[in-house]
């Protein structure tokens, strides 16, 4: 039932690729969740369509990043799964 045909080396490579993607996604998540908002007071000096930029990023910008990031992650992880032949049929 489980993937008995996968060698330990291959399995380790797969998990390394998956882990690499995980850290990359979490880094972007961390930037959009925390780092960028440290600069909100200065970003607010820039105004676009009436929105102070720091406010806009917290109210919409970061949220859009989260949505796009998850869909991108899902597609990327699928490609890794297919490359290592562990995707579901």
């Amino acid at each position, binding site marked *: *039932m*489980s*993937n008995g045909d*996968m060698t330990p080396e291959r*399995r380790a490579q*797969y*998990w390394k690729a*998956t*882990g690499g993607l*995980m850290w990359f*996604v*979490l880094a972007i*998540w961390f930037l*959009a*969740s*925390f780092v960028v*908002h*440290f600069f*909100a*007071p200065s970003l*607010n000096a820039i*105004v*676009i*369509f*009436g*929105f*102070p930029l*720091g*406010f*806009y990023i*917290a*109210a*919409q910008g*970061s*949220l*859009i990043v*989260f*949505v796009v*990031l*998850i*869909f991108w*992650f*899902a597609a990327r*992880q*699928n490609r890794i*799964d297919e490359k290592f*032949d*562990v*995707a*579901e*049929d």
Partner: protein
Amino acid sequence: MAMKGDFVSNLGRIYGTYTGGFIGFVVLLAILEQVGVPNRVIGYLFVAMTIGVYAAIGYLSRTMQVSEYYVAGRKVPAFYNGMATAADWMSAASFIGMAGTLYALGYDGLAFVLGWTGGYVLVAVLIAPYLRKFGAYTVPDFLGARYGGDFARTIGIVVLFCCSFTYIVAQVTGTGIIASRFLDIPFGVAVFVGLVGILVCSMLGGMRAVTWTQVAQYIVLIIAYLVPVVMLSAKLTGVPIPQIMYGDILQRITELEQTKPALAGAKAHTVPFSTYDPLNYFALIACLMIGTASLPHVLMRFFTTPSVRDARKSVGWALLFIFILYFTAPAYAAFAKFEIYQNVIGAQIAALPEWVSIYSGIGLVTIADANADGILQFAEFTIHPDVVVIATPEIAGLPYVVAGLVAAGGLAAALSTADGLLLAIANALSHDVYYRMIDPQASTARRLTVARALLVVVAIMAAMVASTRPAGILAMVAWAFSLAAAGLFPALVMGVWWNRTTKEGAVAGMLVGFGVTLFYLVATRYGGMGEWFGVRNISAATFGLPLGFLTIWVVSLMTPAPSKEMQDFIDNLRTPRGGTMMEEKAV
């Protein structure tokens, strides 16, 4: 007449028709209002019709199969599971309370917008695909399997119960408030109307019924949330896209804040860190996000997708559907604030807009002319946060039918969340406590009977607690996020991502994380203990969460590595191919 296999392939047509039917129903009520049908009748029709539809879906989705009851047969497509998750997630507090919080806190309130969305990235990457691969029915089920034994499972159940029960009491209270206002019945009775609304969706069909009613409830709540603010935006700015047009309104709010003398003392709406200092702002975001990624009623929605691949994509859909409401909430807050700053504060108290007198009549707005000059000053005006969403139809001068629509939306939000929580609690009791720990030989029929009986018992307990309007419990809802984050997140994440995690490590880490967080919450709120480093009570997991991770790491390294079987288990968990690992025995 139960739904047959082709139901899933017809979902688009079914929910498309349903959406059209709902819009037609609203238009019909609007016409009835114009020809003179009283408001009260319209309120009744809204509540009866929507609950009736949910009940019909609940009845049609009844099932006698265990896997249908616990995980909807794992047949829910990613897109629809996303909608169901969005309804599951967005509670009465999101629907009615969020805009009010943003009104009151301005920029700092955005911690809630960020905190209640970003956690889904963690769900998608760290947890959901692996729990789906395992094939768990509940979150404690996974803990029991990964950390070999009933001890880890039991701690999981305790954490789950602590964070979900207070939360469900708040939802039942929400349904009671809405039902009592629109049906004009006493709160104590309305709570039990809400209880019926919750049970008809879940009792006969478990997860399957809750899934398909949640999709229906999402459609109602999102229409109800968008319609008033879109119309208000069109009225104020000429463009019916509130999410873009409120930028201009923000500028006008800032102008008023700086130039209008009566607004002295008002916090600047777009200026960061005026309520929370940066430490508390970021700690709150972190606790809400990690709490989101640990709340069992959210995680269990991703057990219902057909594949691991769909589980990941489904998180994206869920967040997209949640985003539609959360990026609109700040627009509600801005429009309400502009209306109040422009037309209410600084006005003659004798000549306030009509909506103000409606809400001061029911005590949600208070006006006290402290300096007796006949002019309303900022400090003389208080407004209950819920009014921001509820009063928007009146502020925009919209007919009563729109107010009824908002009530139906709030009811949908509260019911859908209550159903998810109810299933999370009752399933942990029936599957983990009864089936796994008391009677593993129980027959299918007996398991389902026990599951339904526990569902009813938990629902009645929640309604009884809610009917006493326990102020303390409602304040504790915010605790759920910190408790779930510190109690569950480290054990779930490390169980997947670090194969050296031992059961002793996980058990110790859960106890430490949950224990420290609970101690901090209780000691700061009731014990008179001072805050550590000034971190507010609501972000209690700031201490328990890192300590939980640290404990798991240290204790795991001090105890013997997991067995070869457990290494195989983890390898299998990390490999999407090969079907679920925990198969239901043939029925």
